[in-house]
Structures are given as structure tokens and as C-alpha cells.
């Protein structure tokens, strides 16, 4: 494995594995709440953070983390209070975030949109030592939340109203979900890029669902799938000289299609088993009694 001899590839693979774990781990809760595109929105907001990082000569990863966490909290607040035109407010947040990023990059000394490209589409080979440290710390936070609080997050994402009656701190958990999603976006930013982050949050979960009936299995399979495609994509990009972010996303979509095709016979078999189990209890055909009974008398 000559690929492991290079320090930059070691860093790239470590970052890729961490993204493969964290993106589906938080993504599953977003999919469960039917907020699959939230990651995309946070990605747009994070661009302002990257731009600010360049402008102030601070670490773009940490700046993006701060700004996207603020953006995610703002989105959650809009969801609580903005009952009527919440979608418009969100749209303004997304595009404002993107425009802010482009503006700040251009204002920064020696900055151009070329700097932004490596954050928009990922640039694994330029992941630095300090990037890896940041990614490891942020990924640890994401894993801690998504695994440690899985029952609470499951309950809140499944049925918010019921979760409130079990005494769970629903608002705090919603905020935590949004913050964790924001942190994941910045973890994944260097690997797949801000514009493709959401794919790794959503597609592995959708692919795993083709096979599973339980939440636990969906979680495990989507994380396994996430790690496989990020490693596969990184290695492929090394040997074939193709962009890693795009390779990873296309591999994920390929996995989704493959699993959908494989799952079709499985679903048919399950449906047949279910039908067989129910037909013994509940005959599918009507039985017509030979004689009329009392219940057949119709009073007028």
C-alpha cells in the first residue's frame, strides 16, 4: 500500500473516514425529521465563515464552524417562531450566506474565488495538520451526540409532540441536532466540499433504508456505507486523478442504486411473508353462509 506512505494521504484518509462516520450519523436524524436538505442550507451559510476566516486571517475551518453553528441556531429559531413565511426567511439565510462568503473572500488581501473553490468542492490533498486536529475534535463531538443521545434524538425526531409529554427537553434537543449538523458540515467541508456535504448526510441513509426495517440497523448500515464510499472515493481519486468529493458522492449514489435493485426481491419476499401471515388470521375471500341468519334481517 504505497498510498499510505505519503503523509498527505494519511491525513486525507483519516479525514475521509471521519466524514464517512459523522455525516450519515447526524444525517439519519435529519432524514427522520424530513429535513434532508438542512445540511445543504448550513453548507451555504458556512461559506460566510470561510470568507471571514480568509478576511481576518483566522482558520477557515474554525470560522466556518462558528458561523454555521450560528446559522443553524437561527434556522431552528425561524422554525419555532416563523410560522407563516419560514421558507422565505430560510432562503434569505442560505443565499445571504453564500453571497457573504464570496464578498468576504474578495475583500480579503490576495483573496479570489479560487480560494473558495477548495471549500466548495473539497480539496483532500491540501488538508493540513491543524485541519486534521480540528476535524478529529469536531468528529468526536458529533459521534458523542449522535450515539450517546440516540434514544432522545430518535424520540424527538419521530414525534416531537409526544416527546414533549415524556418530559424530554425538546427545544434543547432540536437545537443540539442543528448545532451537530452544522459541526458535521464543517467536518466534511474539506473532504467533499460545502456544496456536496448534504449528499453524504442523506444518500447513505436512503440507501440503507432499502434493506432495513429498524432504526438501529439503518444507522449501522448507513455509517458502514459512508465509511466505505469515503475510503473508496479517496483511493480512487489518488490513482485515477479525479476530484475526491465528486467521486465520493457519485459512489454513494451508485451504492444507492445497487442496493435498490438488490432490495427489490427482498421486499417482495417480505410482502409475501406478511400476506401469508395475515391471510391465516383474516381470509382474503368472502364466505357466504348457506342459510340466512338473524343478522341478515333488515328492518325498515
Amino acid at each position: 500500500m504505497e498510498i499510505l506512505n505519503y503523509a498527505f494521504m494519511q491525513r486525507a484518509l483519516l479525514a475521509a473516514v471521519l466524514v464517512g462516520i459523522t455525516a450519515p450519523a447526524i444525517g439519519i436524524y435529519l432524514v427522520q425529521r424530513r429535513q434532508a436538505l438542512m445540511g445543504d442550507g448550513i453548507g451555504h451559510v458556512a461559506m460566510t465563515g470561510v470568507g471571514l476566516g480568509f478576511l481576518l486571517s483566522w482558520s477557515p475551518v474554525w470560522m466556518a464552524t462558528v458561523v454555521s453553528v450560528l446559522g443553524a441556531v437561527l434556522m431552528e429559531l425561524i422554525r419555532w417562531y416563523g410560522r407563516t413565511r419560514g421558507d422565505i426567511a430560510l432562503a434569505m439565510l442560505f443565499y445571504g450566506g453564500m453571497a457573504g462568503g464570496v464578498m468576504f473572500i474578495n475583500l480579503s488581501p490576495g483573496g479570489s474565488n479560487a480560494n473558495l473553490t477548495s471549500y466548495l468542492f473539497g480539496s483532500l490533498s491540501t488538508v493540513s495538520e491543524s485541519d486534521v486536529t480540528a476535524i478529529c475534535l469536531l468528529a468526536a463531538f458529533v459521534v458523542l451526540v449522535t450515539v450517546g443521545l440516540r434514544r432522545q434524538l430518535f424520540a424527538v425526531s419521530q414525534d416531537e409532540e409526544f416527546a414533549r409529554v415524556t418530559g424530554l427537553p425538546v427545544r434543547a434537543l432540536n437545537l443540539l441536532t442543528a448545532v451537530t449538523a452544522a459541526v458535521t458540515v464543517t467536518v466534511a467541508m474539506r473532504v467533499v466540499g460545502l456544496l456536496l456535504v448534504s449528499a453524504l448526510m442523506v444518500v447513505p441513509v436512503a440507501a440503507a433504508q432499502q434493506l432495513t426495517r429498524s432504526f438501529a440497523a439503518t444507522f449501522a448500515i448507513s455509517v458502514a456505507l459512508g465509511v466505505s464510499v469515503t475510503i473508496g472515493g479517496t483511493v480512487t481519486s489518488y490513482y485515477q486523478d479525479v476530484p475526491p468529493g465528486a467521486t465520493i458522492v457519485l459512489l454513494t449514489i451508485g451504492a444507492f442504486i445497487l442496493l435498490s435493485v438488490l432490495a427489490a426481491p427482498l421486499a417482495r419476499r417480505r410482502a409475501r411473508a406478511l400476506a401469508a401471515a395475515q391471510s391465516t388470521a383474516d381470509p382474503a375471500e368472502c364466505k357466504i353462509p348457506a342459510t340466512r341468519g338473524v343478522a341478515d334481517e333488515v328492518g325498515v
Partner: protein
Amino acid sequence: MSDESVISLRGVRAELGSRPVLRGIDLTVRRGQVVALLGANGSGKSTAVRTVIGQVPVSAGEIELFGTPRRRFRDWARVGYVPQRTTAAGGVPATVTEVVASGRLSRARFGVLRKADHEAVRRALDLVGMADRARDSVNALSGGQHQRVLIARALAAEPELLIMDEPMAGVDLASQEVLAATLRGQVAAGATVLLVLHELGPLEPLIDRAVVLREGCVLHDGPPPEAVGQHALPGHDHVHPHAPAGAEPIRTGLLS
């Protein structure tokens, strides 16, 4: 039956948007009572229940649960809630057991389920006759089975008070019987029940008191209205399209 009040609403008002939905509701449910909240669509019966659990904010009045003001009430393990059934399940598959286990969280410290908690989940599934479907996805269930799962979820915490919003809506006959039997068992064990119902139906023999709402006001509070004549026939569907006495005739615009 004791005099201890489990739910108490005094002069409760609530608005949805700017439209007043509750205009000063008084309602007391005492320990061991089974109270049905009846009324037409839009009468405020669901909203009344949702103010009790804190889902709908109250603009005036007081709500107490087990003698504690609702804002300070923390003992949610004593309350089992069955929301009005939504057809939309979560966006990710979940098994019957996973959904019912989330009802046990109110008794679990830090969200860790111990052996006793898993046993309680199992018992709740047994009560509604869904133990054999424990490992199936909730998406594969019929409407009635789904409702049984939601009731098992409420029972998993072994609550003293059950609040149910239209538990019989869209439920097939077999599941209705299971639900009625489950509820009978809970009442016999001393549970207090507040039910939102569209019609009394198969739960009629269980109900001690009926509270009828109209346009956000309590219209009737007392023994359930007895069905007479043809209305008393089994299987009769209670549909009352006629306007209440003293109301203006409905103007359709066709003749006026």
C-alpha cells in the same frame, strides 16, 4: 374514586393565530374518572387537550396536573399521551419496539433503558396484542395496528393518567375491540382517562362523564348522553347534521 383532581382547567383561553379557539374552559377530571371530550370539528376539543400537555400556549386561565401548575409539572412519567394519529411516520424505518421504547424514556435516567424498562415495553406490546409484530417496521402496519402501537407507547411508562386524542378514528373493528379491552383493563387498574372522541362508539360503557364543547365553550358536563330509539341500535352511526336549538338556520345562499 377519590376527590383528588388529576387534571384541572380553570378559565382557559387559547388562540391559534389570532382566532380564539378556547373561550374560557373549566374542566376537572378526578382520579379514576373516564371523561370523554365531545364536540364537532373545530369545537376546540383537540386544542383543549393540547393545552393540557403544553403543546398549545394558553393566553389566560390556569391548568393543573396532579395539583401542580402545568408550568412547574415535571413528573411526566405519570402521563401517557396518545396523539391524534398522523399517517406520516418518520422518514427512516423504525420497528414497533423502537417506537414503543421511546415511550419509556420518561422513566429512564439519561435515556438508558434497563432490563425492567425493556420488560415494561414488552408488557405494553402484549396489552395491545402487538407482541408478535414487535420486530416489524411501523410502516408495514395498518391504521388500526399503528394506533395500537401509539397506545402501547403511551402505556410503556405505566402512567396513572391517559390522554387520548381520537383514539378510534380510522381504526378497523378488530383493533377497536382490542383498544376498548385495553382501556377497560387500564380503568379497572385505577387509571384516569381523558379522551377526545367524535362519537362515543364502542367506548360508551366505560365513560363516566361527557364534556361537550361548542365553539370553544363547555356546552354540557355530566353523564354521557344516552342514545335512545333507533340511535341505540348497535352499529348506528351518530351523525347529527342538524343545527343546535336557537341557532340561525344555515344559509346556503341558494334560496336567500
